[in-house]
């Protein structure tokens, strides 16, 4: 098991956002998390990536506890994420956006940096190569020098995706990647998710409201409602689960 979430709870003040969540994610799985707005999906991501510190429970990645670690440390442990409302470094170039994500991999210390030693220059060259490779893969190479904020919406999503991959993740958390996309773009995202998962040997957790995408891409789906897991299973099972239908369509439908 790659990720084991055990009895995880989190509350903001007196408000319970997540209550005793337990989810197990095997390696190379594409897991979907669905649920109405406010059901705690993004909170779960914030807990896994260390943005929030869980009130109780544990999150273990390959047996190592994540709760209590700083976000950057968790990223170095190969967990990457994207944000629901894209968070790029807007005034920085597309290339810099991706290069920044190599921070945790850079080995040069203050001395090599300040004196720009040969070792430093070699590493810089390598970082550029790695960044360019990703940008080419995501068809962003012609925007290299453009400020990230000037890209069209779809490309900004792609750039955020590339930036997340630049940290060399094993586990990738995607928060509503299809938000604001038209059906054609969702179709492309569908293909992309599958080949990216294969090529980078990723385990992906996907928060998504776009049911079509979730049903096609995910091998397993977890349904959250008011911070509690109400259903779990294959897309087929979840789709026919009466509790899920209640949540989405209201009781009695």
């Amino acid at each position, binding site marked *: 098991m790659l990720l084991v979430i055990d009895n995880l709870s989190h509350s903001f003040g007196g408000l319970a956002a997540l209550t005793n969540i337990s989810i197990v994610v095997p390696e190379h799985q594409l897991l979907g998390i669905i649920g109405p707005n406010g059901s705690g999906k993004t909170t779960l991501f914030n807990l896994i990536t260390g943005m929030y510190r869980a009130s109780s429970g544990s999150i273990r990645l390959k047996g190592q506890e994540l709760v209590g670690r700083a976000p950057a440390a968790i*990223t170095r442990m190969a967990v990457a994420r994207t944000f629901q409302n894209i968070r790029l470094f807007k005034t920085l170039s597309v290339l810099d956006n991706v290069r920044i994500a190599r921070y945790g991999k850079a080995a040069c210390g203050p001395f090599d940096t300040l004196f720009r030693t040969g070792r430093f220059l070699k590493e810089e060259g390598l970082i550029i190569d790695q960044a360019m490779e990703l940008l080419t893969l995501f068809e962003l190479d012609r925007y*290299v020098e453009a400020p990230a904020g000037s890209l069209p919406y779809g490309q900004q999503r792609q750039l955020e995706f590339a930036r997340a991959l630049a940290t060399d993740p094993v586990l990738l958390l995607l928060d509503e990647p299809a938000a604001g996309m038209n059906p054609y773009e969702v179709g492309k995202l569908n293909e992309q998710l599958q080949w990216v998962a294969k090529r980078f040997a990723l385990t992906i957790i996907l928060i998504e409201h776009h049911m079509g995408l979730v049903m096609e891409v995910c091998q397993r789906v977890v349904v959250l409602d008011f911070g509690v897991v109400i259903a779990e299973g294959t897309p087929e099972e979840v789709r026919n689960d009466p509790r899920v239908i209640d949540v989405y369509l209201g009781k009695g439908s």
Partner: protein
Amino acid sequence: MSKGFFLPLVSVLLVSHLITAYGLLDSYVQLVLMYVGINIILSVSLNLINGYMGEFSVGHAGFMAIGAYTSAILTVRMFPDALAPWLFPIAVVAAGVVTAIVGALLAIPSFKTRGDYLAIVTLAFGMIVKSVLENMDSLGAARGFLGISKYTNLTWVVFWAMAAVWMVRNFIYSSFGRGVLSVREDEIAASAAGVNTRQVKLFAFTLSSFFAGVAGALYAHLLMFINPKMFDLTKSTEMLIMVYLGGIGSIGGSIVGAMIYTVLLELLRPLGIWRMVLMPIMLVLLMILRPRGIMGLSEFRWLIPSVGVSSKGAKIVQDDAVGD
């Protein structure tokens, strides 16, 4: 070291040495040039915090004071008189190191707080340094520290100004530097991208205060007299003016800002007290006409390293700058 930088660096240094050694320039002109150099060191280092990191530090004069007093104690009291002129470079470096340690401590509040709140912390820091110095009788208290020899010359100022520009540039165009920029843009996204924000802030504050300390040491051994009042809020404000005049987030801007401010202040000297009225008015006008300062986030091409020569042969110029 990047090759493109080496030759101009050495020749400029040689020229300033000749000027110093043979008095090729009027001593007043030399003095103004030294002020320019010291101010370049100050504004470039302050720009690291205020421009690149996007914080607002108003305590830079406090760092300068620590550097000035540290070096003065060393050359006047610790070093044997006969050796003091030769040991002056060590005093400058030591001043930088001591100041850097204090700067690293000041980075700690920046882990938790930012913006206006951090500005108040730096303001308080500046006030603390000044009042501690004012109350230390062994350092001359408010009367000031006397008997400093004039060891600072144009060669040293040029050397340190170039070192500051070169190192701050090297820092900015590196993983650490991009980390600093990412903290300015979006700290949460930065940490999600694996940037150790504490490390980045610590490094930026340490480097910035190191050079402020160096500038303080050069200043003390140029004026041959220092007192706490020289390093009050007015001094910090002066540095802020140079940074914002030249343009935040631009090393070239800081160089230009320091030059224009220093030279203009000298040229307006005949106006007497009125120059302190004219100067602010010019600033207000500049902020209206060019709100981002003269350079405003762009950079001189020669300051942007072209190390981005990828092994695939594609030459990529780093680009948080649009060129001059």
